[in-house]
């Protein structure tokens, strides 16, 4: 074994460049795999851990208090399949209520549950600021955990329902099950006129929607018909939470797969190159008494060393980058506080990659290593340079008769001499071009998504309005909404102005709070592109966002029942689906916003006339009212920027690795042909002609690789974009897939040749500078 080790170590030392290339390739691949697996694990693993630790409810159920008695509902805790439960709790709904003096200024509908303590067997809540409600007139509000907890204490905050309830906020707590907006004592809830009852269950079988439905069927079997009025499941929370990482997982998986294939190809190329170049060396080893197993071991150790080092460093890099990305991935996602700061790359990933990646490298090296093992000593010692195949010779001959400059035609014949290496190098280029094409497509789609989401084509300036009820905020606008409308419309360049506000409401059949966006003004001119259906023509119609659409199985023309600002049930027809936005969007300002006199517009959107200057308009809007905060719509959000930067980084790495693959192939080829190059120099081939010959050999592969890689990359883009859309809950319009144009495709196809030329350039220069005298003397 010592002999194997010393020979393998010497072989590594002799191939420093290739060893380095191999190490870098494995490093990049490992890092990508760690990041991808980390994100995939974070989608469910972190949530499940946190949710189980807090005994989150699998189902939050709301029963009609007039149909089923509390005793009947309490009996459901003993239904088969129920692992544990909590309740019944009286539940009241405040309509048109508002949080006064608090930093969140929530308003609209508040679901308030009467619960005597937070630390229950199911949905164990954590009070992280203030205390639990213990007496009349007290309420604890639901606020995302860690959301500026310290600054919540000390303010005199009340939840006020016009003409009715006035509750003092005594604490802030978070419910992993998102079971209510606020909690009071059970007696207080009854006083508020609770007409519903809440129960929360954990089931033994809760793995799917179907299982939960079956569980609930058992639970409600003994209850009067119609007593169950609404439910919500933890799967919905998990799905919404997964939207963050799911932005990254599909394309990271794509790039991870590309990286692994490139690694395998390059390892195969390096080892087979080492075997071919080391024929004589193998022969000498065997002549010295090395057994076939020892020869195989030499070649395997030779690649395992750099692979292990690259893998270890890659795992470290992947851990740092992955943890950062995993934590950032949940940014802006509903319920992200559940996993905030807890999401990290799981530790099980490290042994997997630290064993798996070197194993993959060893498997890739096995075929050429076995070839070395089988080589007879006599043949190995006598084998010279490149052994041409018949097909290779014929190709070289045909090229010799062409009108191409002789160095170019000689170079073009090289790929035919080593079909195996040519195939590996070609595949490497194909994958490099595929990665580049995929990245360009993804970036274009992300930008198109961002433009569609921000409506950049229609809305050039967005104006935020400060919340008048928030302490410590800049001054509230001095003008009313109507006055602001008139002033903003009168500013030079304005073509269309709309206002937006949001409200909280509930939809019949669900315990979830529905986020309702309400728009008024020139909404017909400023509305977003729709995935299906049409924009609203007036009151009584709503548009749903994709996630809500699928979550509630909506369809065009379906009628849903919402609560208006006064708590009255109103029927709304679903007329369209938009890619991203509030759960539902309505233009019925008077019904959902106007009924509450303290509510007002939170943003204004402005579409400028053709040629209008957004910066000038924003500056002018700032002067209109100190409470306005205009910003120019750049069309690219921070998530999109992160996605594009991650894609760009991975692409640069993969293209660089592909370039290293070409570089490696060029190094092998020029080394094998150093005698030929020496001969050609001796008969007058100039250094520039040597460069042309080597570059031509690789450029030919690059050109073919470009032509193959572009359609493969387009196909990958076509697969990954819809998967990403599905994973993030967005139905994407077809325009997001149609991002290609002919000049762009031509440029991408040429990138293969460019990649090959870049990869081959240094070895070609090195070959051109090698001393012919020395080569011819030593050969």
């Amino acid at each position, binding site marked *: 074994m010592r002999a194997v080790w010393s020979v393998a170590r010497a072989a590594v030392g002799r191939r420093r460049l290739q060893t380095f290339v191999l190490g870098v390739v494995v490093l990049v691949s490992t890092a990508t795999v760690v990041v991808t697996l980390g994100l995939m694990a974070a989608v469910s693993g972190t949530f499940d851990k946190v949710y189980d630790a807090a005994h989150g409810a699998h189902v939050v159920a709301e029963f009609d208090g007039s149909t089923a008695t509390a005793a009947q509902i309490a009996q459901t805790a003993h239904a088969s399949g129920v692992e544990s439960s909590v309740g019944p709790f009286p539940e009241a709904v405040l309509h048109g209520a508002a949080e006064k003096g608090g930093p969140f200024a929530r308003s609209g509908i508040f679901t308030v549950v009467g619960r005597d303590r937070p630390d229950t067997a199911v949905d164990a809540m954590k009070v992280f600021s203030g205390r639990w409600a213990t007496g009349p007139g007290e309420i604890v509000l639901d606020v995302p955990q860690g959301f500026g907890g310290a600054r919540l204490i000390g303010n005199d905050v009340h939840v006020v329902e016009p003409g009715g309830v006035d509750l003092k906020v005594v604490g802030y707590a978070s419910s992993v099950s998102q079971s209510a907006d606020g909690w009071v004592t059970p007696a207080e809830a009854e006083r508020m006129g609770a007409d519903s009852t809440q129960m929360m269950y954990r089931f033994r079988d809760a793995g799917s929607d179907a299982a939960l439905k079956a569980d609930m069927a058992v639970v409600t079997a003994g209850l009067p018909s119609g007593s169950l009025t609404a439910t919500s499941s933890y799967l919905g929370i998990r799905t919404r939470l997964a939207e963050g990482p799911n932005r990254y997982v599909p394309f990271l998986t794509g790039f991870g797969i590309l990286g692994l294939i490139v690694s395998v190809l390059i390892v195969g190329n390096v080892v087979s190159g080492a075997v071919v170049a080391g024929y004589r060396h193998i022969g000498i080893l065997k002549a010295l008494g090395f057994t076939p197993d020892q020869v195989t071991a030499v070649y395997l150790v030779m690649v395992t060393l750099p692979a292990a080092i690259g893998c270890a460093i890659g795992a470290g890099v992947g851990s740092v980058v992955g943890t950062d990305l995993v934590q950032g991935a949940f940014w802006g996602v509903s319920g992200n506080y559940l996993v905030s700061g807890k999401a990290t790359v799981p530790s099980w990933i490290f042994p997997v990659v630290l064993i798996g990646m070197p194993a993959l490298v060893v498997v890739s090296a096995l075929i050429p290593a076995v070839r070395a093992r089988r080589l007879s000593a006599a043949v190995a010692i006598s084998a*010279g*340079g*490149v052994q*041409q195949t018949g097909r*290779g*010779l014929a190709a*070289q*001959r045909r090229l*010799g*008769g*062409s*009108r191409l400059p*002789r*160095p170019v035609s000689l170079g073009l*014949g090289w790929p035919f*001499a080593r079909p195996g290496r040519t195939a590996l190098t070609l595949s490497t280029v194909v994958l490099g071009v595929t990665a580049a094409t995929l990245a360009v497509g993804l970036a274009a789609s992300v930008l198109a998504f961002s433009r569609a989401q921000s409506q950049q084509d229609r809305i050039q300036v967005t104006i935020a309005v400060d919340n008048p009820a928030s302490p410590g905020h800049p001054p509230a606008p001095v003008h009313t909404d109507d006055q602001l409308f008139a002033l903003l419309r009168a500013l030079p360049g304005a073509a269309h102005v709309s206002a937006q506000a949001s409200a909280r409401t509930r939809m019949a059949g669900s315990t979830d709070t529905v986020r309702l966006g309400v728009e008024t003004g020139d909404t017909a001119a400023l509305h977003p592109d729709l995935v299906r259906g049409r924009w609203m023509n007036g009151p009584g119609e709503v548009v749903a966002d994709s996630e809500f659409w699928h979550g509630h199985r909506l369809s065009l023309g379906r009628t849903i029942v919402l609560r208006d600002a006064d708590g009255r049930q109103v029927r709304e027809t679903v007329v369209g689906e938009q890619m991203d936005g509030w759960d539902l969007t309505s233009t019925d300002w008077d019904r959902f916003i106007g009924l509450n006199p303290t509510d007002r517009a939170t943003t204004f959107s402005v579409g400028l006339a053709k040629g209008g200057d957004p910066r000038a308009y924003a500056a002018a809007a700032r002067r209109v009212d100190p409470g306005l905060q205009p910003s120019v719509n750049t069309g690219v959000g921070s998530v999109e920027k992160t996605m594009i930067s991650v894609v760009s980084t991975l692409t640069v790495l993969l293209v660089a690795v592909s370039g290293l693959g070409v570089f490696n192939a060029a190094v092998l080829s020029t080394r094998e042909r150093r*005698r*030929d190059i*020496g*001969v*050609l*120099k*001796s*008969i*007058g*081939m*100039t*250094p*520039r*002609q040597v460069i042309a010959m080597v570059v031509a050999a690789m450029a030919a592969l690059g050109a073919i690789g470009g032509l193959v890689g572009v359609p493969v990359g387009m196909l990958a883009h076509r697969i990954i974009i819809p998967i990403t859309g599905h994973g993030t809950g967005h139905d994407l319009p077809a325009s997001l897939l149609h991002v290609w144009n002919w000049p762009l495709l031509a440029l991408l196809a040429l990138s293969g040749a460019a990649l090959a030329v870049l990869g081959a350039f240094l070895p070609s220069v090195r070959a*051109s*500078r090698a*001393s*012919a*005298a*020395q080569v*011819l*003397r030593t*050969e």
Partner: protein
Amino acid sequence: MVRLTDVRKDFWDYAALDGVSLEIRAGESVAVMGPSGSGKSTLLNMVSGLDRSSAGSVVVGGEDLGALNEKGLALFRRRRIGMVFQFFNLLDDLPALDNVALAGQLAGLTARQSKQRAEELMEELRIADRRDVYPASLSGGERQRVAVARALMNRPALLLADEPTGALDSRSGEAVVELLTELNRLGQTLVLVTHDPRLAARCAYRVVEMADGRIACEHVTDRVTDRGVERAR
């Protein structure tokens, strides 16, 4: 034709050539002899421009090789030098005719022109029937004839041969010696590196003996060929 003045070539800690001065006239046939490591091949590399001297000057056909860059040296070899090696150094993936024609194509001849010239040369060297055969299938003697044809492709002013019979059996070696001698008779300047005194005696009128990177001695001799003794010119 060739003038070396106080040429020195250092490889790390030893001098392969140590103050060599030598002059070769056009039409001469010179044999450079000496034991292994004496510097004879290094001398040949200096003259062919395959290597650069560490000191001194090398002038061939009026061109100071020390003043030429790499491209200049390549063009110099292409136009003025023909080289024949001990192990032939043919390109294995080209048939004999293409190996010969390659030198012409590099010099700027069209494929047709260079092949025509290559065919003429192969005819003259009596290997025309082997034109489509790859080097691996040629005998040693045939390979060396192909190498000589390639060396003559661009009508070089100077033909350099480094142990041209070293890898051949005696019969093939004889044929190559006869070929080189005949070329010299026709006016081709020839520099031959060998450690075989018989080969030197058969090909050269002047013998330069080297030892330890220096010219140990130099003498003019008659050439003993199949046609009899040819007097030194």
